[in-house]
Every structure is written in structure tokens, then in C-alpha cells.
């Protein structure tokens, strides 16, 4: 591999990126629109579907009282400490412990928690005083704080998938690849250059978005910056590699667009960016485990909200890098200039 050739292609690709004013503007604007839109939407009452965790739930299904309330999803919990954390991070709106003494936990910052608590107290009116209220307090987490790591990751996803996958298909269609093919530049050098260029662009845009969003929303960043950088770098390489797999042979931009959407949408929905997959279909959860965005969001959230360090997210980093290596190998084998 020839470094000079790789760097020359990286520079050319970077120029394409930053000189395309419309594209650049959109790349910078999209994450702000997402975050600010969410902050606005979720500043009011949250949606009406509630999730309540239940500790010590009885095995039989004939529930009465509060547990029979419609439009609330009751999710059995095994681990008390983990369940309390879920209340803290809005993954469940309320936690009820049916063991003796009966207790419940609610997050004072959660509007949903407040409403579900009212329902609980009303259902338990016949047995006043028996329920013991516990407040989950300490580090407050707004919904926008919870959702923000995912929004940053989604921005990385769009930029990585389209910035590599779609661009290479465009190069193939308009003849740029054919022209490069006729030079001593090898396919590996070309692909490495595309990855490096996009990694550079995504990193720069992510830092910019991170800093300016923080200035606007003042979100928590409790963990290690090094860990966050590692997670985002590994996640970006995994997502770029996913974009590369689309670009290896496709000649039509429309088809490439469709395939990239086919990858992006399941990740948007299933990676736990907008809502927790707690209590959802088991198959959906298993599918989510295969998606790079899931691990990226999970790790980023643990760093930013729980204060995790490098060691605590190493598992996700390794998974992301494994996904990247497998997809890169597949892409390199399948790649065709024409």
C-alpha cells in the first residue's frame, strides 16, 4: 500500500466534502435540528404508553388492582438495583415492589412517572398507607440527555453510510472509478482512503456538534472522554464498513439509496435511540444486538450518563471493531471498480 496515493485520495475526497456548501450545511444542521426538535417535543407531557417495572411479580396471570390497569406495560424485573437505575434513566416510568414491605420508586423529574404514580395511588386507595414511596434522585437525567448520545450516533450513522456507500456508487456511475482504475492506485488504497476521509469528516463534525449542543442544552458528560472517543471511532469505522458493503458492486444511485435506507431505518428504530427496548419483542432485541448503532448508543449512554470509563465499554468497542473487520473484509473481496 502506498501512503502517498492514499493521502492524495483522502485530500481530494475531503475537498469534495467541504467545498460542497449545501451538503456541508446539511451535515452540520441535521443533528441540531434533531436534538432541538426533541428537546422541544419532549418538554411537554410525554406520550401515553407507560412502562412499569415490577419486582416480585406473582407467577399467575390473573392480575387485579393496579397491575390490571390498561395501556400500561408491566415488565417483570429481577435485579432491584438495575431496575432502580432504569427508573433513573427513564427506561421505565415507575418501579413497583410487591414483596413485603410493598414499595415503589419514581423519578421526580419524569412527567410520565408522576402520572403513573397518581394511577398507582388511586388503585391502592383501599389500602392507604401501606405503600412506601421511594424517590430516585441524585443525578437528574432529562429525556433529552438520555436521547442525545443516540442522536450523536445517528448523525454518525447517516454520514458514514451515505458519505461512503452512496459516494462510491456515484463514482462508479459517473466514471470516476473507471478513471482511477486505469492508474496504479489499487482497490485497497482507494477503499482505505475513503474510510480515512470519512472518519476525519465524521470526527470533526461530531466534535463540533457535541460542543455546540452542549452549549445549548448543557447535557451531562460524566464518564471518560477517551472512552467516548474510542466508542465513536470504533462505531464510525463499523458504520463506514457497512456503507462500503453496499457500494462494492451497485451501479445505480437509486438502488444504493434504497439499500442504505434498508440499513438505516432498522437501526433508527431498534437501536434504542428514541426509546428503550425494555419489554419489547425478544426477536427485536436480538436483532438490535446485531446492529452496530445499538452498541454505540449503549456504550455512549453509559459513558455520558453513568460515568463509565474505558474498561466498562471495552466489550462494545470490541464488538464494533469485530463488525468493522468482518464487513471490511467482505467489502474488499466483493469490490469491483466497474
Amino acid at each position, binding site marked *: 500500500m502506498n501512503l502517498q496515493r492514499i493521502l492524495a485520495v483522502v485530500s481530494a475526497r475531503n475537498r469534495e466534502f467541504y467545498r460542497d456548501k449545501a451538503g456541508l450545511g446539511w451535515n452540520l444542521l441535521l443533528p441540531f435540528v434533531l436534538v432541538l426538535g426533541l428537546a422541544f417535543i419532549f418538554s411537554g407531557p410525554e406520550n401515553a404508553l407507560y412502562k412499569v417495572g415490577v419486582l416480585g411479580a406473582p407467577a399467575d396471570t390473573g392480575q387485579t388492582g393496579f397491575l390490571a390497569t390498561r395501556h400500561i406495560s408491566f415488565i417483570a424485573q429481577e435485579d432491584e438495583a438495575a431496575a432502580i437505575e432504569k427508573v433513573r434513566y427513564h427506561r421505565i416510568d415507575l418501579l413497583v415492589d410487591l414483596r413485603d414491605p410493598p414499595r415503589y420508586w419514581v423519578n421526580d423529574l419524569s412527567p410520565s412517572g408522576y402520572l403513573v404514580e397518581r394511577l398507582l395511588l388511586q388503585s391502592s386507595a383501599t389500602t392507604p398507607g401501606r405503600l412506601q414511596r421511594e424517590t430516585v434522585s441524585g443525578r437528574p437525567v432529562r429525556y433529552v440527555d438520555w436521547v442525545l448520545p443516540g442522536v450523536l450516533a445517528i448523525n454518525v450513522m447517516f454520514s458514514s453510510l451515505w458519505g461512503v456507500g452512496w459516494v462510491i456508487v456515484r463514482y462508479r456511475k459517473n*466514471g470516476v472509478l473507471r478513471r482511477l482504475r486505469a492508474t496504479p492506485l489499487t482497490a485497497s488504497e482507494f477503499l482505505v482512503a475513503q474510510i480515512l476521509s470519512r472518519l476525519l469528516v465524521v470526527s470533526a463534525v461530531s466534535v463540533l456538534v457535541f460542543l455546540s449542543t452542549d452549549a445549548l442544552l448543557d447535557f451531562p458528560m460524566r464518564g471518560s472522554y477517551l472512552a467516548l472517543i474510542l466508542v465513536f471511532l470504533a462505531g464510525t469505522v463499523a458504520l463506514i464498513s457497512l456503507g462500503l458493503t453496499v457500494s462494492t458492486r451497485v451501479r445505480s444511485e437509486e438502488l444504493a439509496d434504497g439499500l442504505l435506507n434498508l440499513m438505516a431505518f432498522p437501526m433508527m428504530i431498534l437501536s434504542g435511540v428514541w426509546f428503550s427496548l425494555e419489554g419489547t419483542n425478544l426477536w427485536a432485541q436480538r436483532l438490535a444486538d446485531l446492529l452496530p448503532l445499538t452498541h454505540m448508543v449503549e456504550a455512549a449512554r453509559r459513558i455520558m450518563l453513568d460515568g463509565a470509563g474505558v474498561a466498562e465499554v471495552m466489550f462494545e468497542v470490541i464488538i464494533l471493531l469485530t463488525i468493522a473487520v468482518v464487513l471490511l473484509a467482505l467489502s474488499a473481496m466483493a469490490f469491483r471498480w466497474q
Partner: protein
Amino acid sequence: MAALIEIENLVKEYPGVRAVDGISFAIAEGRCFGLLGPNGAGKTTTLEILEGITEPDVGQILFRGAMRDAAYRQAIGIQFQHTALPDFQTVDEALRLFASFYTRHRPLAELIELCNLGELLQRDTRKLSGGQRQRLLLAIALVNDPDLVFLDEPTTGLDPQSRRNFWALIAGIRRDGKTVLMTTHYMEEASVLCDEIAIIDRGQIIEQGAPRQLLAQHFPRALVRIPLDAMPAADDLPLGFAVHGDHAIAATDDIDAALAELTRRHVALDDLHVSAPTLDDLFLKLTGHGLREP
């Protein structure tokens, strides 16, 4: 003179069509070789095989007497007929990008002067005119000071003045001792630039040689044309004349005799046209169809 490149029995098939069907030729160092043929004749596929863009199904290509290896790409320069450059690059940046791919270089300043790009260096490559763009693509093809230059219909779509300017550039390259393999369907271009031509039709070479030699071999000295409606009787043409479209044409070495015969028959000579045969005529004779028709 030793052959720089030798092509033996190239075959390339695509579903339903044999694009290249057993083509062989050799080009001596420093010569300009032209592949002529209508669209779809197989000349671009032949060129792509030689450029290393397409693999042949059958056939052998020897460069300096040996099979092509990684060094081959360093030794060739290509100007494609249809190509694109990465967007948002200036002329200067595009030249430097392609220069960085090669170990051997021709000084950029020299190249810029040769291709007359001095005033265009900071211009976005997407904002060049047709002629300017072809000059840039030629400069890119020469950026590695190649031994062998491929030009695929380099002047298609250019206005007559730009075409002649481009011919002057190619003449300059030839003076530098470069070997050139070009395709074209402009016969005048082939006549002016090529030492040797091969006429391709339906994937096969149907004639090959120096343009003048081929014309002398196939035609007498001159062609006498006269519109059919100037003839008193279309079904009773003078000796030597044959109908081609709406003209009667005679190929002859004795122009005086042909004119005398026409005068004797009281044919009005107002629209008479006497010309030297061209490669267009040769192609028509060999294939029965014109060069610009498939």
C-alpha cells in the same frame, strides 16, 4: 523498429455479442496507430482490454516483449472518451491528484504549458469548456510521462477549431517520441495523425496499413462524382460509373477520359465533383456501410 506492444488474437464476448473477435496487431515504438470503426465495432472494448480496464476472454498482450505486470500501469497514459473527475477540484488539484499515483512524473509546469492550461489552473474542472476539458484530460494522461498513450475518440464533440488545436497537441506528443494508440471515427483525424490504421467492423480487423498505402491499394487516383439527376439516363451510365445513393461515382486513374465521356454524352458538368478517395470511401467499400453508422 521493435514493437512496443503486441496484441495476439484478442477475444471478448458479452452476453449476445462478440465485441472483439480475434484481433491481432503490433505497434512499433514512436508510431501512432489508429483503430477506426463505427460505434459498436469493438474499438473501445479493444482499447479497454489494452488499458487493463477489461480482461479479455482469450488472447495475449505483450508490452516490450513481456506479459504486462504492475509496472505497465506506470508506463501508460489514458485519455478516456467518457470519464469524470472527483467534484470540486481545480485543474491544478486534479493534475496533482493524478500525478501522486505515479512514481515517474513529467514536470507539471511543462505539462501545463504543453496543454495550454496556464490560465485555467484555479478553475473548477466542472466549469471547463469541451476543448479545455479535453486538454486537461490529455494532460492527466501524460502526467506520468508515459511510453504509450491511449486516446479514445479524443476529439469527439469538439468544434472544428478545438479539434485542430487538439491535433497540434497530439503532433507535439508524437514529436516527444511517444507511442500513441487512438480510436476515432473522424477519417480526416486518422489521415492527419496516424502512421498506421486498422479498420474494425463487427469485432474484426478488416484492413490494416498506412492510410495512403491502403487508399492506393483499393482505389485509383481519383473519384468522379456526379448527381444522378444530371445523367440523361440513370439506367445507361457511362463506363466505369456506378450508382451510390443519389450519385453516380467512377473511380479512375484517367480523369480526362472520364470527363470526355461525360461531355460526349452531353452530361451537364455543373455539379461534377472530383476528389481523392478518403478513408470514408475505403470504409464504405470494405463494409458496405458508412463509418458513422453502426
